[in-house]
């Protein structure tokens, strides 16, 4: 069964054909990075407008790469939320129009669920043979970490979720981005922090861990203030010139550091503070719920320190009681937003009868629930 997936919940316009929920036949992502770079950030309206111009060529490219005609599409799947309203609308309306005109079922997918299902996907290695791996075993615990999400999810079977925890303030990827900005390291923060931290000592600076008791929730907002305090002694004195103003607002001065500032140690210590809480809580949940698999998903799943720390914590906490628990994560191209994960999730959703009607709407604030 060929499922055409469409994903436009935030910055990427993506389409993909996935066979039988696992075999990726094409995975096309038109990143709007070039568009955004010209503006120095992600501009939502540009994102929405970018989706409108990109979506049809991206769908055609996905069909072309998969080597099928439109008529070869058996099901159309699309992200209904959560995400930016204007961006979601583009994908949902194109998916509806395609499904209606082709006379095929439409499936609406939760973006968070799709990220979990990225772990089911198999990429072709040489264009023909997928990497064969058994599907993740249930029950599983999935840590979904990206610029906009930090979610800890228990999945006992296909479609059976329990949202164990989430961030109470900043997302983990956001914490990396803002930490990088505080250290004057640049954008995007996650990769930059990781690169700079490689040469650093993660134990040199003591940053707080927000454990929040036994809860599986996370909090990263306070870390920014703590990092600011540690970095303060190494900052060059602010310019004596009055700060330029934008309307009534003085501009914030960009961080400038002395050449011998221990930026690598600061970055490593900051990264360790974020990663340790993520890894420990995920491992703790895996132990409590007897997980047979631990999954990572989302853009921050590419962070090497997180992978290492999570593998260590799972081995240390779970193995004595549960035996070896594999820690899995998707290949990098399927960690960040993509449509293959939407098509993959739709295969299993359809098997439990989750077909969407033509009245399907967007749900920008959708949560992951269901038992």
């Amino acid at each position, binding site marked *: 069964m060929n499922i055409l997936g469409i994903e436009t919940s*935030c910055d990427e316009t993506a389409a993909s054909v996935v066979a039988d929920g696992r075999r990726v036949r094409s995975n096309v992502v038109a990143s709007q990075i070039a568009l955004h770079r010209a*503006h*120095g*950030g*992600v*501009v*939502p*309206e*540009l994102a*929405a407008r970018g989706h409108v111009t990109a979506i049809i060529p991206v769908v055609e490219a996905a069909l072309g790469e998969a080597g099928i005609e439109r008529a070869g599409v058996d099901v159309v799947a699309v992200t209904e939320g*959560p995400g*930016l309203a*204007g961006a979601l609308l583009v994908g949902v309306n194109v998916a509806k129009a395609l499904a209606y005109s082709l006379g095929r079922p439409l499936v609406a997918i939760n973006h968070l669920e799709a990220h979990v299902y990225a772990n089911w996907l198999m990429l072709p290695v040489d264009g023909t043979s997928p990497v064969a791996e058994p599907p993740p075993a249930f029950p599983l615990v999935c840590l979904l970490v990206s*610029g*906009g*999400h930090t979610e800890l999810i228990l999945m006992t079977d296909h479609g059976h979720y329990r949202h164990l925890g*989430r*961030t*109470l*303030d*900043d*997302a983990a990827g*956001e914490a990396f981005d*803002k930490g990088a*900005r*505080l250290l004057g390291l640049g954008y995007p923060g996650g990769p930059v922090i990781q690169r700079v931290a490689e040469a650093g000592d993660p134990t040199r600076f003591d940053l707080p861990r927000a454990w929040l008791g036994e809860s599986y*929730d996370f909090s990263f*907002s*306070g870390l*920014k*203030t703590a*990092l*600011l*305090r540690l970095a303060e002694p190494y900052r060059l004195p602010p310019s004596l010139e009055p700060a330029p103003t*934008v*309307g*009534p*607002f003085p*501009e*914030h001065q960009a961080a400038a550091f002395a050449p011998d500032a221990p930026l690598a140690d600061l970055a490593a210590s900051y990264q360790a503070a974020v990663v340790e809480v993520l890894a420990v809580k995920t491992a703790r949940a895996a132990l409590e719920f007897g997980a047979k698999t631990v999954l990572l998903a989302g853009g921050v799943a590419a962070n090497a320190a997180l992978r290492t720390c999570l593998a260590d914590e799972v081995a240390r906490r779970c193995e004595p009681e549960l035996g070896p628990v594999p820690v899995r994560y998707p290949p990098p191209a399927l960690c960040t937003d993509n449509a293959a994960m939407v098509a993959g999730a739709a295969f299993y959703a359809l098997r439990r009868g989750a077909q969407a009607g033509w009245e399907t709407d967007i749900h*920008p*604030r959708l949560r992951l629930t269901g038992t």
Partner: protein
Amino acid sequence: MDRQPVLVLTSESPEQTREIGSWLSGVARVGDLVLLHGDLGAGKTTFTQGIARGLGVEDYVQSPTFTLVNEHDGTAPDGTTLRLYHLDLYRLAGEADLESFGFEQYLAPVDGITLVEWPERAAAVLPEEYLLVRLVPLGANARQITIEAVPPEGMYEERLDALRERQDPEG
């Protein structure tokens, strides 16, 4: 002597910053626009948590950096539902294109109050009247919190008067 259109407060801790936010929420009225200015780590999230607490919001106040806007249901002093629109323009690069994200519809909400972080990203399209809160770090935990009615003689001056009449959270 002229009445000062500015309140300058010092918070010694995150909890006190929350109390000041909660105190401010006590004089808020439907349609109010509050701009929150301060750099990363200055305490904008903490202050917003205080406003939300003062409005009886039960949700956690997650960062709207990614979603641009989060909505929470709170309760006005008279018992009616008051919605808190929490906007964050951090990811925006300039004023262009605020229109289609629907920025303007949040500037004078008919059923709640709007709080905007990183308002400088929309400096050119802001209305003439608003309450401006500035957060400036004075060290590890202390913050100078300035609450200003813009313009000085505008409708928000009344909010400052109301604040002065209430118990000052510092003393």
